[in-house]
């Protein structure tokens, strides 16, 4: 019970912090829609082409904007010492990593998830594809959050080259993208592809607390 309370209040804190950075979330969403507009304008109003690349576009934009927010992942809490205080309050590093990953999912990816239906309308994506998009997107974005957690905790030890972390995340997410886009375009093999995606999710899920936790520990040691 005590433990559960701690978790709940961890999210209360994240919520307070993220809400005060509300404009970051808003900027993300605006960025998302602006990019869609740019595409439509650069392609011209050809409906066929737009609906052809729509899914791919949504996916890339998701990936790009979740790397956009990677910087905030641990950096602030690390620099102002809150990471240490939270750890001393009885959260192990691995556990902090899990909580933070979910928090990233909640405050960065979910707003995207919610804006997908609108994007689908803009991009002429057929309604029946929406479900596939949603399913692959929710799993995929969790994978991205985990990858982001690992890379940005690694980045704490490498404060010089921030983009490197993003590049690593992006390289690792290539297979994720391939499978997710495949899911939507090959509806008949939906089940097997989503299982693969699930498999990837489980793997990064298992690695994440271990890898991020280690990186957090080491970076605090050297601060």
């Amino acid at each position, binding site marked *: 019970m005590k433990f559960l309370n701690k978790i709940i209040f961890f999210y209360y804190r994240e919520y307070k912090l993220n809400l005060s950075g509300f404009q970051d979330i808003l900027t993300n969403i605006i960025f998302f829609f602006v990019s869609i507009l740019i595409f439509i304008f650069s392609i011209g109003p050809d409906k066929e082409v737009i609906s052809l690349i729509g899914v791919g576009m949504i996916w890339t934009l998701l990936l790009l904007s979740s790397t956009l927010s990677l910087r905030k992942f641990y950096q602030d809490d690390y620099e102002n010492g809150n990471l240490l205080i939270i750890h001393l309050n009885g959260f192990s590093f691995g556990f902090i990593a899990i909580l933070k990953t979910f928090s990233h999912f909640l405050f960065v990816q979910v707003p995207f998830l919610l804006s997908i239906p609108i994007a689908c309308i803009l991009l002429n994506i057929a309604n029946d594809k929406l479900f596939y998009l949603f399913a692959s997107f929710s799993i995929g974005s969790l994978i991205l959050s985990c990858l982001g957690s690992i890379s940005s905790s*690694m980045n704490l*030890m*490498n404060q*010089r*080259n921030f983009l*490197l972390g993003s*590049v*690593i995340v992006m*390289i*690792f997410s*290539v297979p994720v993208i391939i499978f997710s886009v495949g899911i939507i375009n090959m509806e008949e093999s939906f089940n097997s592809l989503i299982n693969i995606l699930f498999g990837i999710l489980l793997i990064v899920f298992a690695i994440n607390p271990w890898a991020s936790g280690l*990186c957090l520990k*080491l970076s605090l040691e*050297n601060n």
Partner: protein
Amino acid sequence: MKFLVNPSKFNEMADYLFRPLLILSIILFAIGLLFSFYFSPDDYQQGSTVRIMYVHVPSAWLALLTYAIMTIYSILALAFRIPFGFIFNTAVAPIGAVFTLICIVSGSLWGKPMWGTWWVWDARLTSVAILFIIYLIIIFMNLSFENRIVREKVVAIFILVGSVNLPIVKFSVDWWNTLHQPATISKLSTPSIDPSMMTPLIIMTFAFIMIGVAIAILRIKTEIISRKSHLS
């Protein structure tokens, strides 16, 4: 064979080998160039652009080979706790990157007359591009991570994970139908290439290997020295 895993043994061996290797590679290179430009025939289809092959194919093979060896050393370093593996990886990654770059550039130069574009997004070319980026990431990780012990392990793990890409590069031509040439030379059965083209190709390949090894020896030595000075 101890010199393959032991820094001080490696140093001894390197002192023996370096000079002959360098001389040998220069000679081989000269002969190879001579062969490929004067003593080999034009292709009946491709004309003289076929000569690009003598750079393209060896560099492509070496790009793959270098990564494969790095993978082996990563396993050695991580599983068997042989720190020489870390040294090797740090030193050799740039060499592999250069080979990959040569492969891509020569390939695009070849591609323009053959396919009409510099670049297409088929499976072979894309996977090679990814190989190149993986090499670059390895180099940059080595440059920008501060904590050496962590960095080495992270890089080694990254190399291991990235090795998934190797079979994709190699077999992409068989798995997907691509614009790129399927294996003609490196087939396990009889190669379907004329001996007059085969000879310069083999010589060039060995020249590339020699140069690669020579530079690798130099870089590994400096890496060993820099680590020693760091510890003292």
